[in-house]
């Protein structure tokens, strides 16, 4: 077993890279403001990672529901019983190296057809703060017939979510 934040070496065959700092972020969390809300459900799995061969790692997967003006804009929470291999999750995350109280990762902004990157800060056992959402760096490529990349982000950010 290898703690994800305690090692400097890269993953080697046979490693199991653990992420205990992520545990405090697990569960169902909700922000609500009038008719707007964001619910996120996060759970941790120990998975066989895509590469290198025979490496396992803790992996945070999650699901979210975004309601704007009473209308459900995005919702993957019906899949919250799914696991990593089902590929139904809309969130991929893990604790940030060197920052045990920050969870970082990506959330699928379905209405914008893209993953955006987030940072969530642990406040206490019943509160977390979604600090920021950002577009991912790098080239944007649109296949022929597909709409161009949409740079806008409508998911709420700089919000405090409460444990449900």
């Amino acid at each position, binding site marked *: 077993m290898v703690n*994800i934040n305690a090692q400097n070496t*890269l*993953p080697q065959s046979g490693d199991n*890279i653990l*992420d205990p700092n992520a545990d405090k972020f697990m569960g169902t969390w909700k922000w609500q403001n009038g008719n707007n809300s964001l619910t996120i459900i996060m759970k941790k799995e120990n998975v066989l*990672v*895509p*590469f*290198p061969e025979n*490496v396992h*790692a803790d*992996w945070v997967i999650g699901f979210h529901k975004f309601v704007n003006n009473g209308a459900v804009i995005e919702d993957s929470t019906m899949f919250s019983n799914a696991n990593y291999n089902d*590929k139904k*999750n809309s969130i*991929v*995350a*893990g604790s940030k*190296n*060197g920052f045990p109280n920050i969870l*970082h*990762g*990506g959330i*699928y902004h379905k209405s914008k057809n*893209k*993953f955006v990157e987030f940072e969530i800060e642990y406040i206490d056992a019943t509160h977390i703060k979604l600090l920021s959402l950002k577009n*991912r760096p790098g*080239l944007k490529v649109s*296949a022929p017939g*597909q709409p161009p990349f949409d740079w806008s982000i409508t998911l709420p950010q700089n919000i405090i979510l409460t444990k449900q």
Partner: protein
Amino acid sequence: MGTFVIGVTTASNTQYMMVIDDPAKFANFANGLFNGNLFDDLTLYNYTKMYNDLFKITPSNSTLDNEKNFLQYIESSESGLKVLKGSSDMQNWSLIELDQNNNIIPTNCN
């Protein structure tokens, strides 16, 4: 080496180009990132998590560590890609690879 090249200059005053060294390997790697004709965004983000959290390629690292980690990343993902590093005036380019001791070995392309 293949004919497709993609380049980047960084805020650390370094410049790189990436080339397809093994087209069959690259095709297999790329196929894994598609679901039919569309990018599989979730798989792509899983690869991003590998990049950030397991291979630890981050702006806070030294250039050397990021180069080593990135070379490990493209090797262990069986991407079929190789990396060239340019001099500051971009007149000289070297293929950079890792040896068995994880040291970077440059091979001049000129």
